[in-house]
């Protein structure tokens, strides 16, 4: 009985508070900075875009009468005289997860007003992001040299190339823009713009450490999308 009581005391007030939030005037997302709320709305739209790509890929793959190329072999790397399946993709996955970890810590130290740790971790996150995009460029080059095109490939269903270039290309673009924003934010943090609430050069918004969290949401989302691409495109 005790567990039911404690669950009720957690869930029921949360639902009541949500009804209050949505029924209130002026502001629904209370105690959420507007930048963060808007980032969530943007990410929601991005979820739909990536989901449509992945569902399109699923449809092409399921309706194809030809066999789908085996990703395990296509993305194998030749190391020390033998083929290791999916090695490059595994390395890229670990790099992106590492960058997500450093980003989470950057947000944490940001709220502790630790300027050097936040800036340093942002720079480290950006470097890992660059490394990821670099490996992706290497992967694209390798596949193009092996004859993969959006309209065909040597191993099977011709839709493979189209799905691969669209999905990984769109994700890589997200990572690249993320790196750009990370560098800008690292500069802002390191020169003390957030500590002194200095107005931004483009938008004129006053600097706040919440901005690091908002940027963090974007970066974690990029990692989140990769989790799905890794499972559905490379492992399935």
């Amino acid at each position, binding site marked *: 009985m005790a567990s039911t009581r404690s669950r009720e005391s957690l869930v029921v007030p949360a639902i009541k508070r949500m009804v209050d939030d949505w029924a209130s005037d002026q502001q629904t997302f209370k105690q959420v900075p507007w930048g963060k709320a808007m980032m969530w709305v943007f990410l929601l739209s991005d979820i739909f875009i990536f989901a449509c790509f992945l569902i399109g890929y699923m449809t092409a793959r399921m309706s194809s009468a030809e066999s789908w190329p085996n990703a395990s072999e296509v993305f194998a790397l030749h190391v020390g005289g033998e083929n290791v399946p999916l090695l490059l993709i595994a390395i890229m996955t*670990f790099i992106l997860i590492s960058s997500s970890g450093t980003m989470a810590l950057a947000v944490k130290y940001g709220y502790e007003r630790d300027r050097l740790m936040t800036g340093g971790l942002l720079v480290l996150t950006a470097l890992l992001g660059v490394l990821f995009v670099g490996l992706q460029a290497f992967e694209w080059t390798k596949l193009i040299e092996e004859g993969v095109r959006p309209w065909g490939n040597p191993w099977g269903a011709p839709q493979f190339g189209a799905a691969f270039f669209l999905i990984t290309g769109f994700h890589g673009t997200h990572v690249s823009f993320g790196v750009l924003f990370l560098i800008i934010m690292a500069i802002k943090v390191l020169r003390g713009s957030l500590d002194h609430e200095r107005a931004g050069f483009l938008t004129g918004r006053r600097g706040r450490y919440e901005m690091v969290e908002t940027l963090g949401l974007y970066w974690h989302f990029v990692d989140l999308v990769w989790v799905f691409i890794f499972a559905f495109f490379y492992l399935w």
Partner: protein
Amino acid sequence: MAHHDGQQHPLSVYLWVWLLLFVLSVLSYFVDYVGFEGYLKWTLITAFMLMKAGLIMAVFMHLVWERLAIISVVLVPPGVLLFFMGLMILESRYTLLARLNFFSQ
């Protein structure tokens, strides 16, 4: 205004989640490496994927500490995507059958 100071959580929470994400990635890589096939492979991949996604959203993106109003905005609308996926599964089955019927030699 102390409450407006944003999200502050102990370092150990982040490090544990980070470690778990690594372990789950290794496990899902091993599903491929060991060479499991069919439903076993798909179930394991999906399970590890959902666990990783849940950890990232809950802890790294701070969703467990947010109010229900913002959590529901993020998690409820993507539910229709599952419905969309179901529709497209039916559609692609039909396309495949039609192709096998009419275009095979």
